[in-house]
């Protein structure tokens, strides 16, 4: 069974078709890139995949389940986690709490347990805590556990966002422009981190990115869309040579 299957997915906003006839299948374990000019519909595809938008047309099936009837938190619970193009951390909560709350679906206790602090509550909280601390450790964020994300440098905020997504323990991780706003030196670190995550957690990763160094060094397979339509797909080297992609997206790097 495929992990994620999108068939003929079309997304319209009023008169505007943001994505049309998008097809994609993940078997599990891939590292896929999604690139395309601004406004091509990349984020929209992610929004559909994470259940935030219901597609106007077409199917989205995750682990054999049609996600169109699910609310976003339900889709996440199935195993899709994501980061956002503009960082969306809960800025008034500590880094640790950010990572705790993302495990909400897995709490497994109810309001009464919460009031009475039952065994079940304590067990669940301990588990949540241990997962959170483990992730902080692995992503080298432990020092900032009690810090508010707002007070962290941009690069670290990106990392916290990735940690938060990982705490969902997803099967599919969607990264929306993880390198945006990072300086060249930090980008190198990020590439290493993502590669390590891909291996360590045995995840399927799907990434949108405009920085070609990142895309080319990480992705095994790339899909290019423009005006909501797929214009090319293939391995990084194929894409770099593809005249349509160069014309619509890569352009001429001479300034």
């Amino acid at each position, binding site marked *: 069974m495929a992990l994620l299957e999108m068939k003929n997915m079309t997304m319209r906003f009023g008169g505007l078709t943001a994505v049309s006839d998008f097809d994609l299948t993940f078997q599990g374990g891939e590292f896929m890139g999604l690139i395309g000019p601004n406004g091509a519909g990349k*984020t929209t595809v*992610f*929004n559909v995949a994470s259940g*935030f938008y219901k597609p106007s047309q077409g199917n989205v099936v995750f682990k054999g389940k049609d996600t169109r009837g699910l609310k976003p938190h339900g889709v996440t619970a199935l195993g899709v986690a994501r980061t*956002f*193009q*503009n960082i*969306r951390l809960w800025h008034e909560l500590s880094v640790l709490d950010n990572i705790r709350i993302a495990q909400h679906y897995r709490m497994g206790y109810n309001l009464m347990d919460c009031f009475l602090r039952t065994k079940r509550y304590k067990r669940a909280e301990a588990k949540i805590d241990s997962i959170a601390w483990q992730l902080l450790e692995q992503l080298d964020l432990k020092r900032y556990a009690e810090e508010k994300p707002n007070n962290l440098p941009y690069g670290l905020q990106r990392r916290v966002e990735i940690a938060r997504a990982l705490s969902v323990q997803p099967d599919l991780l969607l990264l*929306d422009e993880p390198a945006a706003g990072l300086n060249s030196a930090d980008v190198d670190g990020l590439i290493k981190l993502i590669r390590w995550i891909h291996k360590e957690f045995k995840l399927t990763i799907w990434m949108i990115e405009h920085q070609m160094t990142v895309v080319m060094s990480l992705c095994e397979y790339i899909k290019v869309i423009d005006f909501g339509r797929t214009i090319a797909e293939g391995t990084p080297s194929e894409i770099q040579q593809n005249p349509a992609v160069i014309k619509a997206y890569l352009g001429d790097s001479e300034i």
Partner: protein
Amino acid sequence: MLESLIQNVLNALQWGSYYSLIALGYCLVYGVLLLINFAHGDIFMVGAFIGLGVATFFLGNLGPEFGLSGPVVLALTIPLTMILTAAVGVTLERIAYRPLRRKGAHRLYVVITALMCGLVLENGNLAILGASRRSFPQLIPTQVYDFGLFSVTNVKIAVILAAILVFIFLQFVVTKTKMGMAMRAISWDKFAIPLMGIPVDSIIVFTFILGSGFAGLAGVLFAMSYPVLEPYMGAMVGWKAFIAAVVGGIGDIRGAFAGGFLLGFVEIMVVAVFPSTMRDLISFTILLVILTWKPTGLFGMAKTTKI
């Protein structure tokens, strides 16, 4: 049945006009600062009292005699009241809201401050002028035009016209002028306004002048048709006008205008059709249903969350 229907439509139009006039002021300030200016109802009250003071002065009841006729006094009272009320609004902005804004306070703190300012205006008036109600002098004789089926007074017609004119004026200002554009832009992102070469504070002051000025106008008109003035007269109308503004879609001039009339119609028609003891029960249920059906009000733009 028909006659009372026409009569009630007229009643609703007039009553709705007041809600509209006040809601427009709410909406302006909200549209710029996202501040629910809970003092607005009380600024309206202050407007009525200022109107009373100005009118009494020109009628010669406070000292110097001018020997002016009623309509002349009215013609003087309206602009003067609008100016003075605007000054009150701007003063509140300067001494209470602006410092908070400067300190970057959460917007709800400004809302609470506004609520407190309203209380100060109400109770300050009570403490200074005493609890006696004031009667607004009759500046122009009330003409009752009785058409058999229904009757209507000159003041009623004037009020409805005033509401419509104010609406058209404000709608023009907000949608067609750069000033209006700046006003809308501030509510979205105050930070970037100076980068466009626009002085934020002047725009805000301008908004308060408009909003409070028209509250003053509403005050005078209100005092002419309901000539009993008391310090708490603005509180209830203020809350309801706020409700009207939101049901219309807060932040949108059309919404405030339509919301005001809608509330007027609902309140009057519910009384006309149902037992009047149930008025609040039924009219607010209707408003709730409207909001459930259109969660952002009649004209409100759903804020799409772009991820």
